[in-house]
């Protein structure tokens, strides 16, 4: 039979008038799309190989290249789209699971897009953040519900012990992305930006490479099911510890870093033999229940002398609110909820696209549940998965989050164009790859500057939005659903989000 070819996703369009045959595209494409033929003096492209990362477009000195979507299209069909067909063809070829990278790309309702913010008019002055102080300082950690003050020699003293806290200058942190899933240069970029701005980055389950030690004081070290890179020094080096139970892109699924990516550097950082597959089991095999989680939380607290906050990250699933409540009661200082749009370096596409719930609903549900149980203060709540702009940050915080994690947005700042091929290891932008040809393309000096700029830009925007509401400290936004209104949401959705519909007054 004639074997159907892979459906072409992109067309590489070259303006021959502009092409100067400099061959930059030929040299740069890790997918071997472009080639130069000296005989005909032509540069041509094999569009079928193009993943749509747009690297060639960006480096072409004459802007002769444009990458366009979807030329090869099947007959119009409301049910069968190119994607479904393409995946079946792939599977018929290989008999395997279809892999994918980055976050869910299905049109699952974007609640952030259906929420609008308030601003002051007449009865309440808006505040200009360029002229007045505007505070974004955020603390992540468990707080007591009250403090006991005593007066000694006319000086007031606090006698209540305050658990360890992370101090953030903006309510945005870089989410867990391991050295392995991304390059060391990408890790360095984010780590340096976090340190420079006064927020935190996260090792993911990749261990802490020694080149990242200078940034360890602002690092959240992850303990995941594979326990890669975990030893006493690792725990002590970090500012906080995060137990990873699940991830928004692949709830209930483990991880797999193929052996060919386990280079000498990764092997020593993860503490596994070079060239072996790094397999993270789906569950932690010492946590089959909530009381097991409690043991791990306190084992980690013991190991670090109760000096560091210990948090737990879970994927947003149907039962997220009770689970989060259990996690708080198990002693976690912060809870991370990763929504269905959360990214990944590699996941089965069928899981990424179909499992989990949107972060907006999850955060509102968890915050509400913790308040109803009177334990909201006992843990901070970090929202993750699909935060695309500072507007989303503000909305997530108003829905009840203390801070948000960003991953995809940070990678986009480093060049990522969401081609979703992270799992191939051929990232032209030098992010999701360990190939030395490619990793050197990401200069961490530039990367750190760009990631820092993103934090700065978002923070300025958050201040503008706060000022408009007449608020000058982020804590007055946290859980302040009065500042939110839904547009085009039905009653149940509004009820779950805990907000009113636009048009309703206070």
């Amino acid at each position, binding site marked *: 039979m004639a074997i159907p070819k892979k459906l072409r996703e992109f067309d590489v369009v070259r303006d021959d008038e502009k092409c*100067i045959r*400099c061959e930059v595209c030929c*040299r740069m494409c890790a997918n071997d799309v472009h080639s130069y033929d000296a005989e005909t003096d032509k540069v041509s492209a094999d569009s079928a190989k193009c993943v749509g990362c747009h690297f060639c477009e960006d480096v072409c*000195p004459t802007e002769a290249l444009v990458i366009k979507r979807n030329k090869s299209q099947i007959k119009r069909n409301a049910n069968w789209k190119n994607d479904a067909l393409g995946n079946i063809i792939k599977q018929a070829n290989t008999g395997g699971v279809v892999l994918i990278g980055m976050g869910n790309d299905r049109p699952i309702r974007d609640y952030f897009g259906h929420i609008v913010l308030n601003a002051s008019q007449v009865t309440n002055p808006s505040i200009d953040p360029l002229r007045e102080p505007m505070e974004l300082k955020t603390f992540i950690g468990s707080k007591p519900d009250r403090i006991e003050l005593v007066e000694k020699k006319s000086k007031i003293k606090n006698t209540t012990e305050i658990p360890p806290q992370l101090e953030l200058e903006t309510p945005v942190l870089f989410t867990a992305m391991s050295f392995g899933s991304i390059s060391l240069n990408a890790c360095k970029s984010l780590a340096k930006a976090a340190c420079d701005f006064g927020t935190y980055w996260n090792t993911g389950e990749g261990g802490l490479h020694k080149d990242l030690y200078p940034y360890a004081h602002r690092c959240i070290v992850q303990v995941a099911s594979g326990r890669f890179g975990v030893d006493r020094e690792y725990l002590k080096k970090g500012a906080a510890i995060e137990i990873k139970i699940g991830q928004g892109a692949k709830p209930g699924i483990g991880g797999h870093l193929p052996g060919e990516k386990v280079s000498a550097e990764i092997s020593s950082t993860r503490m596994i033999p070079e060239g072996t597959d790094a397999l993270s089991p789906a569950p932690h095999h010492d946590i089959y229940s909530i009381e097991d989680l409690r043991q791990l939380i306190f084992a980690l607290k013991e190991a670090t002398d109760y000096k560091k906050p210990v948090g737990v990250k879970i994927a947003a699933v149907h039962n997220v609110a009770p689970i989060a409540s259990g996690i708080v009661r198990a002693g976690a200082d912060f809870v991370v909820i990763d929504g269905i749009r959360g990214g990944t370096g590699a996941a089965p596409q069928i899981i990424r696209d179909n499992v989990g719930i949107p972060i907006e609903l999850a955060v509102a549900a968890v915050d509400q549940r913790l308040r109803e149980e009177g334990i909201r203060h006992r843990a901070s709540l970090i929202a993750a998965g699909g935060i695309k702009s500072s507007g989303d940050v503000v909305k997530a915080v108003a829905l009840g989050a203390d801070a948000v994690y960003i991953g995809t947005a940070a990678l986009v700042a480093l060049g990522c164009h969401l081609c979703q091929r992270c799992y191939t290891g051929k990232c032209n932008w030098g992010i999701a790859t360990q190939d030395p040809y490619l990793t*050197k393309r990401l200069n961490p000096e530039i990367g750190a500057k760009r990631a820092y700029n993103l934090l700065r830009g978002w923070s300025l925007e958050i201040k503008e939005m706060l000022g408009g509401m007449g608020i000058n400290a982020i804590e007055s936004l946290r859980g302040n659903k009065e500042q939110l209104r839904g547009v085009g949401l039905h009653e149940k959705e509004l009820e779950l989000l805990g907000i009113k519909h636009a048009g309703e007054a206070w």
Partner: protein
Amino acid sequence: MGDKKINKPRRIIIREEYCMGCRLCEVWCIVAHSKSKDIIKAYKGQEPRPVSGIYFEERGAISFTLQCRHCEDAPCLEACLTGAMYRDKKTGMVLHNKDKCVGCWMCIMACPYGVIKPDFKEKKVASKCDLCIEREFPACVEHCPNEAIILVNKKGERIDKE
């Protein structure tokens, strides 16, 4: 980028760990030394295409570019019979005057870095990095997408693009 003639010493530093091997430095070196300074005309127009003053070296994943080091103790200056190769007093750069060049190629023989290119047709020196003395910022530095080629001042401090 203005085309003010610069009058302060400066130096190009190559950071091979960030060189991604795109060779855009060569492309823009050629454009900067072309008559029109227009990339399409320089490559596809009627004017003669200049030769890049940059050498690109690559083996495996390691790559870097090399251009005239403007040595303090420059052997090419010693070797030049006619004074075509000379040192600019203000900037300390080693420059080449084509009008005086007789094409003996002694400079090419003398250069320890091999960064002077011969012109076989005209029997002259074809190209040598002039640190873009006509430009505020050397073309290769300006266009390196990964800041693998950087510019420093006399003290070794980095000069950044505005």
